[in-house]
């Protein structure tokens, strides 16, 4: 077992990047991602990590540099939040289509405007369809583990796709948590060197990023989506292997007291841990409540969701992003689609809350539970979602 120390989650994330022996780090500062890259530059400048640290002039270049580095066969890391993600958006899509296994930590922060540095999931949801593998971390340990997991999955031969690790800004990035480090041997056992299929090298010239005329474009896109869908089996076995080595087992969704529950909360990211406390308290009050936390976001774990929620009467889906003019939050939209053909469809209520760092406390979640129980009586439609806790509504 590795050493266990109390450390800010951002710093431990950087330490995990070091353990992954990353070759190239290109990043541009933005709150709340800053501590991660600051610590990485320290590690490089102190000679603790042999990597190129490229202090780029923008996030657009951060992702472009990562693309170039990955294309020559270097293990590339970058890290950003909200506006930075928007600025690099164009290249985020291209990196996926070029099958470059860059790993990015996204310290989730609200999208401007109004400008805000605080946490929600509006940034990642804006690139939901970018073609990257996307996971959410619930706590600091998961962030650490998923950096190593990230490279293992992204770089596997049948996958070769970039991967995003979502971590809630401030709620996770800026808190000190007990983190269990991996032993060097454990990393070596788990994560092999990056063995790309094609690289840019004069001895084997290849052309990357050619023009896709209509007669090849659709084929190119399907050839991109297939490995993303199929990556799920690689992801599951990479989690299994991780568990066998460090003793922490992960899965696409995590359930808590859900087996016999009549009502299930569904969350993404760090809210899961808060809601697990809510579940305990509601159970103490005699309510039949459980929790499903979504860890894998893309590829979407359809089967797992159907299995976990199929027998449930009510779902309370907590979203932290808006689909303007649409049918609620992005998580609710996907889950509704996943359950559309099920025989015993649960009543679905959807609450959008915690936008840009607005606190959602245990009492708030209890309140949400009671509101949901009222709502299900009226058979809410998909557009009947609620912005929870908004004044003047």
């Amino acid at each position: 077992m590795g050493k266990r120390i109390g450390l800010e989650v951002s710093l431990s994330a950087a330490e995990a990047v070091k353990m992954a022996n990353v070759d190239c780090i290109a990043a541009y500062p933005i709150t709340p991602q800053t501590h991660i890259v600051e610590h990485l530059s320290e590690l490089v400048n102190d000679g603790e990590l042999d990597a190129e640290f490229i202090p780029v002039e923008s996030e657009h270049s951060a992702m472009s540099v990562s693309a170039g580095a990955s294309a020559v066969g270097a293990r590339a890391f970058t890290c950003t939040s909200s506006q930075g993600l928007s600025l690099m958006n164009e290249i985020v899509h291209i990196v996926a289509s070029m099958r470059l296994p860059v790993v990015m930590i996204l310290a989730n922060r609200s999208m401007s405007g109004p400008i805000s540095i605080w946490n929600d999931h509006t940034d990642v949801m804006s690139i939901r369809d970018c073609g990257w593998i996307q996971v959410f971390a619930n706590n600091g340990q998961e962030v650490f583990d998923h950096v190593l997991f990230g490279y293992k999955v992204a770089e596997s031969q049948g996958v070769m796709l970039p991967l995003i690790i979502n971590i809630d800004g401030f709620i996770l990035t800026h808190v000190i948590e007990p983190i269990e480090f991996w032993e060097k041997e454990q990393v070596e056992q788990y994560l092999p060197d990056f063995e790309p299929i094609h690289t840019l090298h004069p001895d084997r010239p290849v052309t990357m990023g050619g023009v896709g005329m209509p007669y090849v474009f659709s084929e190119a896109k399907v050839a991109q989506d297939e490995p993303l869908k199929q990556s799920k089996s690689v992801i599951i076995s990479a989690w299994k292997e991780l568990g066998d080595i460090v003793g922490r087992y992960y899965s696409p969704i995590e359930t808590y007291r859900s087996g016999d529950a009549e009502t299930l909360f569904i969350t993404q990211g760090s809210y899961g841990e808060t809601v697990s406390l809510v579940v305990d308290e509601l159970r103490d009050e005699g309510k039949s409540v459980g929790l499903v936390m979504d860890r894998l976001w893309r590829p979407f774990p359809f089967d797992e969701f159907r299995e976990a929620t199929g027998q449930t009467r009510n779902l309370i889906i907590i979203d932290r992003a808006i689909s303007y003019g649409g049918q609620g939050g992005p998580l609710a939209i996907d889950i509704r689609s996943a359950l559309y053909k099920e025989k015993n469809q649960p009543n679905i209520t959807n609450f959008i809350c915690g936008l840009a760092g607005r606190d959602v406390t245990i009492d708030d979640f209890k309140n949400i539970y009671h509101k949901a129980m009222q709502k299900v009586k009226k058979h809410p439609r998909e557009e009947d979602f609620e912005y929870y806790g908004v004044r003047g509504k």
Partner: protein
Amino acid sequence: MEIVESTNVYAYKLITKKDYFAPGHRACQGCAEALAVRLVAKALGRNVIVASATGCMEIISSPMPFTSWRVPWIHVAFENAAAVASGAEAGMKVLMRKGRVPKRKITFLAMAGDGGTSDIGVQALSGALERGHDFIYICYDNEAYMNTGIQRSSSTPYGASTTTSPAGKVIPGQITWKKNMPEIAVAHNIPYVATACPSYPIDLVEKVNKAARVKGPAYIHILSVCPTGWRLAPELSIRAGRLAVETGVFPLYEVEYGRYRFTEEYLKIQGRFRHLSEEMIDTIQKRVVEEYEKLEKKIKMTEGD
């Protein structure tokens, strides 16, 4: 040693017959930008990794599943060739340092049009020059966004009619002056900046070779005549490039470590000057500048006569 009858003819033989930018690409007839690309590829040989911006040269050379590139080549987007090349250079450096790729000299080339350089790509370029990556950046300046249909760029010359600076009844075409991109590169204090034109192929190849030799960033701005966008007969491309240089519209010069000089090619290709020392070349250079300035004054004095 054989007697060389004509240095002019001999000099051309110094350029390799090998092509790394293959024929069969889809550029228009008489495209001097494609010619410039071909010459650059010849100059750099096979030990190169190319990062290209979106634009005519990318479109005409890479329709999947075909490619004109016999060297490793990557295209990611329009405005980021300098950043992609930065990543490739940095990535290769660390892989060689860690022993995962055998050590050897590889040249990194970023290439873009004038739009991809002086407009949308200027930020990424400035960042890469400032960070000091060991790479060459080449701007193929055809003085407009040709790939999207001849729209103006900041490199379009004053007066030119383009599809977004049309010669209208009130506004007679482009009303701004050409952005001085080589000067912007010079301001980054990089080791080498040059201007070139494929109408002067030996000069162009020599400058590319020089750029490949310097350690750190080098910037070459190549005037690339585009018959389609310039409304010019394809057979006049080379002539138009020569005229641009001869008339001083597009002067050829080099800036080595901040030292400006007109191109030495004129002297170099002539056996009768081969013996000149650096000081003598400097003396000639000084005199040329003085004479040129005098001439400019005279032109001004007699203006409107």
